[in-house]
C-alpha cells in the first residue's frame, strides 16, 4: 500500500515546488543584502545582484553607538547562555526533587509550576518592570537573565519532570546503597543521564530567549545592553528603506541560530514535536 508509485513521484515533485516557493523569501533576503546602493533603486527588486558586494555587511557591522550590532550579538549570547545555565541548574534540581518525592507538597508544588505555564507573561511584565526599575535592574544583563530564568522555569521543570519520571531509579538506588549522599548521587549518577532532557530544555528555552522581542524591548530598549532583536528594531527604523543594509542586519541576526539549527536539526524538531505540550 505504501509503495513508491508514479503518483508518489508526482507528489514528491509537488511538495518540492511548495517547499521552494515557501523558501523564496530567503532568496530575496540574500540577493538584496548583496546589492550595492545604486543597484537597489535601478534594478528590479526580484533580480539577482549583478555586482554582488559585501560592503553592506561591513557597514552595518562597523556602525557604532546605539547601532552596534556586534555588541548586541554579544549581549544576546550572554543573556541566552546565562538563562539556559540558570534554567538547567535550578530547573533540573527542582524537577528531580518533585519527580522523586512522594510527599504531598511535591504534587502541590508541581501544579504550581504547571499552572504558571498557562499564565501569560504580559500581565506580570508591568509590575516586574516597576519593581526592576526601583532596584535598578532595568537595562541590566543580569536582571534580564533572572527574568528569563523565572519566566521559563515552569517549562524547564515540566520538561525535566517528564524525563525523570521515565528514568528508572535503579542506578540512584544502587549508588545510595553504596553510601553516596543525595548530592553525590545527583552529580555523579543523575547529571550524566539527563543529557537528552537538558538538550531539549536548552533548545526550546534558548530559542525563546534568543528571539524574544517583547520583554527585551521593554527592559532593554534604549539601554547600552540591547539584545539583537531590540537593536535590529531601532537600527532598521532609522534606515527607512535601505533594504540592502536592513537585510545585512537580518542575515547577521539569523546566521548564529541557523548554523545551530543545521548542526542539531534532529534535536530541534524532536524537541518541538514532543517537548511542547
Amino acid at each position: 500500500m505504501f509503495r513508491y508509485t508514479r503518483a508518489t513521484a508526482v507528489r514528491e515533485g509537488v511538495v518540492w515546488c511548495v517547499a521552494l516557493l515557501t523558501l523564496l523569501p530567503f532568496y530575496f533576503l540574500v540577493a538584496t543584502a548583496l546589492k550595492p546602493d545604486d543597484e537597489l533603486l535601478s534594478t528590479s527588486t526580484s533580480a539577482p545582484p549583478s555586482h554582488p558586494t559585501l560592503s553592506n555587511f561591513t557597514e552595518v557591522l562597523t556602525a557604532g553607538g546605539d547601532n552596534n550590532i556586534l555588541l548586541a550579538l554579544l549581549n544576546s549570547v550572554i543573556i541566552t547562555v546565562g538563562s539556559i545555565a540558570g534554567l538547567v541548574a535550578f530547573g533540573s534540581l527542582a524537577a528531580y526533587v518533585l519527580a522523586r518525592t512522594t510527599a504531598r507538597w511535591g504534587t502541590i508544588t508541581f501544579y504550581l509550576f504547571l499552572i504558571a505555564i498557562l499564565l501569560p507573561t504580559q500581565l506580570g511584565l508591568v509590575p516586574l518592570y516597576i519593581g526592576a526599575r526601583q532596584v535598578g535592574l532595568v537595562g541590566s544583563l543580569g536582571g534580564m537573565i533572572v527574568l528569563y530564568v523565572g519566566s521559563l522555569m515552569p517549562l524547564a521543570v515540566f520538561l525535566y519532570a517528564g524525563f525523570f519520571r521515565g528514568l528508572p531509579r535503579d542506578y540512584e538506588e544502587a549508588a545510595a546503597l553504596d553510601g553516596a549522599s543525595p548530592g553525590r548521587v545527583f552529580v555523579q549518577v543523575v547529571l550524566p543521564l539527563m543529557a537528552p532532557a537538558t538538550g531539549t530544555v536548552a533548545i526550546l528555552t534558548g530559542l525563546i530567549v534568543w528571539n524574544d522581542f517583547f520583554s527585551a524591548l521593554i527592559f532593554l530598549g534604549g539601554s547600552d545592553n540591547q539584545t539583537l532583536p531590540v537593536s535590529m528594531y531601532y537600527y532598521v527604523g532609522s534606515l527607512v528603506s535601505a533594504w540592502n543594509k536592513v537585510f545585512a542586519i537580518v542575515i547577521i541576526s539569523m546566521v548564529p541560530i541557523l548554523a545551530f539549527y543545521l548542526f542539531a536539526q534532529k534535536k530541534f524538531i524532536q524537541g518541538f514535536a514532543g517537548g511542547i505540550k
Partner: protein
Amino acid sequence: MTATMGTPQDTGPLVRGEVPVAGGERAARPRRYRPLISYGRWWWALPAILMVLVIHYLATAGGALYAFTDWTGIGDFDLVGLDNFRRIFEDPTMIGALENTLFLAFGFLVLTNVVGLALALALNRTLKTRYLLRVLFFTPVVLSPLAVSYVWKFIFDFRGPLNTVIGWVGLEPRVWLADPDLALWCVLVVMAWQTTGMVMVIYLAGLATVSPEVEEAAALDGAGTWQRFRYVTVPSIRPSIAIASTLMLIQGLRVFDQVMALTGGGPAGATETLATQVYKETFALSNFGFGAALALLLTLIMLVFSVLQQAATRDRN
C-alpha cells in the same frame, strides 16, 4: 526489617529505624522514620519555586491589582474600580485592537493547522526526500519573528517582488501594508508562514502513532482516502490536534513582533492588537493602570479560550 527494594510504586522505600545495629544493641534515642534512600533534598527546589512565585504569581497578581487603578507610573494612585475596562470598551481603537487580535488568532489557528496537517500528511511516509523536506519546512520556526517580518515587509513593498509577480498576470500593484483592508491579512500571512512548520512537526509526531496495518485493513475493507483519513487517522491524532490548536491560539492572541515590524499598528490603527496596545499604553504613554487593564483582558481571553479549547478537543469519546 523488610529488605525489599523500593520500586517506583512504593511510597516509602527502605525504612531506617528497625535496622539492628551491629552488636545487637539498639540506640537509646527514639527513631524518626526516615527513608534510607532520599532522592535529593527538598530545598533543592527552593530557588525555582521562589522565582516562579515572584515572577509568575506575585507579578501577575500585582498586574491584576494595577488594572483597577489610575496609576501613571509615578506617585500615588487611586482605585478606580472598573473605569479602565469601561474606557477600553468605549474606545474604538481598543475595540479595533480586540477585533484584530481575535481575527489574527483564529485565522492563524485555522491556517497553520490546515496547512501544517496537509504538509504532515504529505511528508509522513513514502517520499524519498521527506527528511530533508521536513528540515526545510521547519527552518522558519527557529528564526526571530522580527527578522522574518522585515523580509516580508520588503516582499510587500510597493516596489517589491509581490507587486512584480502580480504585474506579470496583469494586476495593478497595491500598497499592501498601507491598505487598511489588506494590512491585517499580510500580518496573518507572515505569522502563518513562520509557524506552519512547527504545527507540521506536531502532526508528524501524531501521525507516527497511526499504525500502517490498521490503515491497510481499512483500505482492504474498501474505505476510500477520505474515509481512512476521517475514521482512522483523525481519531489517532486527536491529542496532536488539541496541542497544536491550543498552542496556535495562544500564540496568535499574543501577536506583537510581526505587527511592530510590519506596520507598527498602522495604517490608522488597522493592525493594532491587544499586545501592541499594552506596550504602547504602558511603556510609551505611561498609562500603567490602563495598560494593566488591557493586559488583564488579554490574559482572561487567553485563559478562557485555552480552557474552552481543551474541553472541545478532549471530550469527544
